[in-house]
């Protein structure tokens, strides 16, 4: 049980008082942004990157992971009480959770969401600890062409496999890939698309793009939307779960966990996909199918467990392969790079303390979160009462603060505004945002692997499909591209449409 030994070693890192403090800050911030509509974990990590530049790498990364976990917890609160999901992975929770709140069962809904998140977070983090070393061993045998195939698969799942349109998903991805071409070519040093502006030689900052699209674009979209804001349902009636609620919830938690973790781990989409699949499963297995749509507790318990498990699952490809499959993971990757660390199999060897400290911290963070989200729930509800003008004013000040702190040149701020407008128009016309961010960070990595693979093979393109791993991965990628396309063409796409969200 080598893993257990490493995990205990990690716990000794994680129990350091400073590290505990970082984890606590992370989960608190994460819950707050999860609760607040309009900002999610991706944006928050992007905002914090410049601030953590001079801080401890291990502590900062633990804080980022805490934000990711916390966002999954906090999002459910908003979904249940407000019917506006606080972040994308909680969209499904809103279906049943808000109905429960309207029936005066908001208390049990919040409880099953928080406890389900805890159960799922605990199990999925343990799964992460046991699966990661296995993947690392596999990853050490992979060459550039296999990595290239993996990245193509990630591109397809992020952009085209789910959501309501292959066309719009791919368009978002290619916008990200085009932006990724800006700057100095990593292999030859050639300056690409710099338009004579020296600042562009460094390429486009992932954080600038993410902040612009998620914060500025979102704020404009919310401000310009016509219609009355949702009213909040007060929590009244029974707060704690009854025996019957427990009996109906625990199986849903476990099912949600076992659906969510693989989805997150397999580059098959983010937490929003997992939560939708879990909802569909619960509906199928439920002994009370008639309650679905009218406040079935399984419909809250399952998806909330699934989205937390998927968040943990996402860390598997991120840590072991350096492959981000969601926008938050993409920005966490930028966080690793900021500290000169490259996630991947070697990280488990060169920075074993950091990796295992991070994983162990997640177990502790999870325990902190259940405390933050059950006894202290009243505090978060109060956050929802901040009037929208002040809330969004504050969001924009903090959003621009991050960019100004790194680089206060008018060029950088101009790009921020430009991408903000782009993000607004994309949201307006139904284009997903996450593929742009993933394309920007993964594009140069994919290009590097492609050119390395072709160098090794002396320019022979068949090399790309000449290992079993790469051939299988590229086939799966092709299927993920073609099958949904056919399904949509035949009008059998309700399922895909509901699964797609503006994933964080």
């Amino acid at each position: 049980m080598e893993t257990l030994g490493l995990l205990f070693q990690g716990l000794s890192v994680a129990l350091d008082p400073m590290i505990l403090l970082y984890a606590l800050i992370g989960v608190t911030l994460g819950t707050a942004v999860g609760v607040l509509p309009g900002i999610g974990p991706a944006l928050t990590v992007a905002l914090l990157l410049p601030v953590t530049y001079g801080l401890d790498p291990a502590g900062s990364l633990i804080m980022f992971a805490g934000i990711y976990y916390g966002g999954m917890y906090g999002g459910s609160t908003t979904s249940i009480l407000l019917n506006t999901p606080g972040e994308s992975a909680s969209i499904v929770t809103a279906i049943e959770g808000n109905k429960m709140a309207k029936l005066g069962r908001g208390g049990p809904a919040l409880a099953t969401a928080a406890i389900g998140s805890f159960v799922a977070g605990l199990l999925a983090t343990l799964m992460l600890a046991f699966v990661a070393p296995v993947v690392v061993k596999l990853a050490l045998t992979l060459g550039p062409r296999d990595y290239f195939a993996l990245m193509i698969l990630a591109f397809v799942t992020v952009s085209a496999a789910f959501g309501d349109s292959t066309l719009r998903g791919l368009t978002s991805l290619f916008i990200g890939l085009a932006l990724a071409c800006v700057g100095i070519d990593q292999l030859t040093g050639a300056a690409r698309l710099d338009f004579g502006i020296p600042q562009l030689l460094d390429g486009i900052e992932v954080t600038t793009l993410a902040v612009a699209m998620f914060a500025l674009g979102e704020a404009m979209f919310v401000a310009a939307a016509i219609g009355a804001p949702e009213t909040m349902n007060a929590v009244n009636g029974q707060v704690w779960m009854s025996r019957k609620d427990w009996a109906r919830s625990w199986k849903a938690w476990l099912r949600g966990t076992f659906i969510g973790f693989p989805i997150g781990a397999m580059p098959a989409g983010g937490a929003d996909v997992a939560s939708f699949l879990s909802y569909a499963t619960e509906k199928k297995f439920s002994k009370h199918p008639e309650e679905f749509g009218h406040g079935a507790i399984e419909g809250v318990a399952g998806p909330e467990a699934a989205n937390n498990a998927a968040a943990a699952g996402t860390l598997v490809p991120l840590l072991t392969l350096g492959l981000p499959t969601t926008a938050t993971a993409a920005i966490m990757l930028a966080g690793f790079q900021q500290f000169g660390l490259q996630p991947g199999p070697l990280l488990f060897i060169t920075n074993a303390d950091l990796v295992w400290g991070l994983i162990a911290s997640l177990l502790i963070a999870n325990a902190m979160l259940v405390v933050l989200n059950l006894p202290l729930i009243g505090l978060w509800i109060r956050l929802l009462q901040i009037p929208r003008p002040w809330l969004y004013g504050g969001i924009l000040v903090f959003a621009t603060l991050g960019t100004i702190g790194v680089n206060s040149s008018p060029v950088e701020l101009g790009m921020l505004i430009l991408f903000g407008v782009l993000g607004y128009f994309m949201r307006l016309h139904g284009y997903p945002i996450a593929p742009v961010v993933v394309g920007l960070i993964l594009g140069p990595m994919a290009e590097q692997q492609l050119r390395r693979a072709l160098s090794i093979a002396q320019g022979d393109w068949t090399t790309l499909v000449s290992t079993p791993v790469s051939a299988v991965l590229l086939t799966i990628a092709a299927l993920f591209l073609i099958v949904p396309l056919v399904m949509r063409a035949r009008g059998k796409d309700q399922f895909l449409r509901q699964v797609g969200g503006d994933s964080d």
Partner: protein
Amino acid sequence: MNNPTTGRRPLGAFFIAAGLAAMAIALLVDAASLTQGGGYAGVGPADVPRMVAGGLLVLSVWTVVSGLRGEMPVPPKQDYGPVFWILLGLGLQLVLLHSAGFIIASALLFACTARGLGQRNLPLALAIGLALTTPVYGIFDKLLKLNLPGGPLEDLIFVNLIPRLFGAAMGS
């Protein structure tokens, strides 16, 4: 989101397709100016931008077809006034950042955004903005060592006022 289109002409789709094509052309023009040293790979710095450009051109044509067949979603009705206020705030911040300093420029952004989201009392919004951005500057610039541009107000508060108060407190 995915409302069926009415009889409207798909101008939006044409506009988007033109934008994608323009991006593709920018990539191609730039790629043409690069020296191609492919080395062993036979793939140089200009090839991946060319592939991305190819993808964008295909997507551009696909968007036009999709628009003609009425498959593009109709954007929800928007009230552009608030967007204008937010852009005005961002623009003011960009222009005034280095002369007026972070506190004033960002307070203006705060006030304009709040105005865009329905807060009509601009002086109040500006006051709350200043009450927010002043401590933010203190925390992030002075404590966390982010490099935020200062102006006269920052000098007054953080170079003259606070050290003097502290100095007086120390002296007594």
